[in-house]
């Protein structure tokens, strides 16, 4: 069996002068839960749009299941892109029948996916009567229809209440457990951290990091410091070699430091320069920290 489910080579796309995607290359392995992280406008949806033939790339190519993309391969991919898109005057069932006919899967699966997203009791209502959360769940049902090998979910928890978010998260984990490959774009960091095995961080259309989530989290320590004179503190911090990055968060500075720099040593080094800390804390590294750290590097 093909190990790579998706390969992207040197994809670029511009909207006028704005470079939405800049020479992006990427591989996604079968069975992984792959998160695409990035601030708003970083090119997440553009990337997924290209993968689904909604958007045409300016240059570069991509391969699904090792083959050049076409509509037949696309039937093996279930996707939710940005927002749910259905015929408002049709019922949920009729809308899903259209999707089933396009995919060439039997109608029997419809009840099953509607059950999965808890829409069974509203399945004969028109789509236009649905709330935002229900629309979103219907879109997820449409993506899962016919057991596709790959699920692409772009901001799947948009518009959902906390229970809905937890439901979707469980759904994703369950699907991953059954061997689906999932590509999940989100700006919600803890969402990605909780469910993803791999992650890519995008910024202004450029890849900043791609690899296992564990690796992104390993290798350095996060500390939080503050002093009465923040500017002076910032200058001093930048001179210390073991401090890899500095990001300001209100009164505090969030630092990524080498593993051998323990808090006592840092405190001592700063005190020698006449800076006395009012706050010093060691934090467990999360994807959020890593993300901020990467983005602060580039500024």
């Amino acid at each position: 069996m093909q190990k790579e489910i998706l390969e992207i080579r040197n994809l670029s796309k511009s909207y006028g002068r704005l470079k939405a995607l800049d020479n992006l290359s990427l591989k996604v392995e079968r069975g992984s839960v792959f998160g695409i992280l990035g601030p708003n406008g970083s090119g997440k949806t553009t990337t997924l749009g290209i993968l689904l033939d909604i958007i045409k790339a300016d240059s570069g190519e991509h391969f699904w299941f090792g083959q050049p993309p076409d509509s037949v391969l696309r039937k093996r991919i279930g996707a939710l892109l940005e927002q749910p898109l259905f015929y408002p005057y049709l019922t949920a069932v009729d809308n899903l029948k259209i999707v089933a006919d396009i995919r060439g899967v039997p109608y029997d699966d419809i009840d099953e996916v509607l059950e999965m997203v808890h829409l069974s009791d509203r399945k004969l209502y028109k789509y236009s009567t649905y709330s935002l959360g229900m629309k979103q769940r219907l879109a997820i049902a449409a993506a899962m229809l016919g057991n596709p090998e790959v699920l692409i979910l772009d901001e799947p928890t948009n518009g959902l209440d906390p229970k809905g978010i937890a439901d979707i998260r469980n759904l994703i984990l369950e699907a991953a457990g059954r061997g689906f490959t999932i590509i999940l774009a989100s700006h919600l960091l803890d969402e990605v951290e909780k469910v993803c095995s791999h992650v890519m961080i995008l910024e202004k259309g450029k890849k900043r990091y791609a690899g296992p989530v564990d690796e992104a989290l390993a290798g350095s320590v996060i500390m939080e410091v503050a002093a009465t004179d923040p500017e002076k503190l910032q200058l001093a911090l930048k001179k210390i070699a073991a401090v890899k990055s500095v990001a300001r968060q209100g009164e505090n500075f969030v630092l990524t430091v080498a593993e051998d720099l323990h808090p006592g040593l840092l405190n001592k080094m700063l005190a020698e320069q006449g800076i006395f800390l009012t706050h010093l804390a060691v934090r467990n590294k999360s994807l959020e920290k890593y993300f901020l750290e990467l983005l602060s590097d580039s500024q």
Partner: protein
Amino acid sequence: MKRLIKIDFRKYARNRTFRILGLLYVVLVVFVFLVTESFLNHVISHVGKGSPVTVPDFSLYSFPYVWHNMTFIAGFFKIFLALIVIIFVTNEYSYKTIRQNIMSGMSRVEFLLSKVIFVFFISFAVTLVLFLTALFLGIFHTEHLTVALVLAKIYFVPAYFLEIFAFLLLAMLFAFVLQKQGLAISVFALYYYVLEPVVAFKLPDAIARFLPIKMITHLIDVPNSSLMKLFGVNFRETVSWTDVWGCAAYSLLFIALVYLFLKNRDL
């Protein structure tokens, strides 16, 4: 093919706008067919009152002339059908369901094909309505009914089909390119009623004749009734092959243009 018909049919069958517009069209056209004759006779006998020549009552409905007369009259209402096509193609853009369709595994060519099938289906349905109405009118208004008489000018029916099909494909082209419903409807109407007539007026006849709307409308010329002969005007009583090939070529061209437009565009 069957799959595409099924998919597209589901999009319209339950739609209220589609049902109402479709029903309205059928009722309107059948009504107009039924009253045109008595209306014309009424007007003419009125006009004929002071005339030195006696104006004869005439029948629009006798075979074989009914085919030409009815297809010509029905031609006036095709803008109504164009409206339906534009509404449903632009809906796919405003609901962004074209995205969902492509994402789910339709190719762009299949999407275009499904809309061509939709246009074909509408053209076929209205041709059928016309055929049946004209057939009944003819049967009840022809004195010496023979099969040969019925079939004599029946080629106006397929010509009418081609007229509607080509015309609706032009409407489809406008809808795909402009995407916004209001914009597509107004620009199409502007082209149909103002732009092309003005251009046609400025151009020499030999060239103007080949403009799309001109060509499509020219397929079925004004019927030559006994009344026209009275005034000494003589219109073409047949369908010319030039027009048939011209309309067929335009149909292909419109489809090809949509294909080129759709092929490399972001949706």
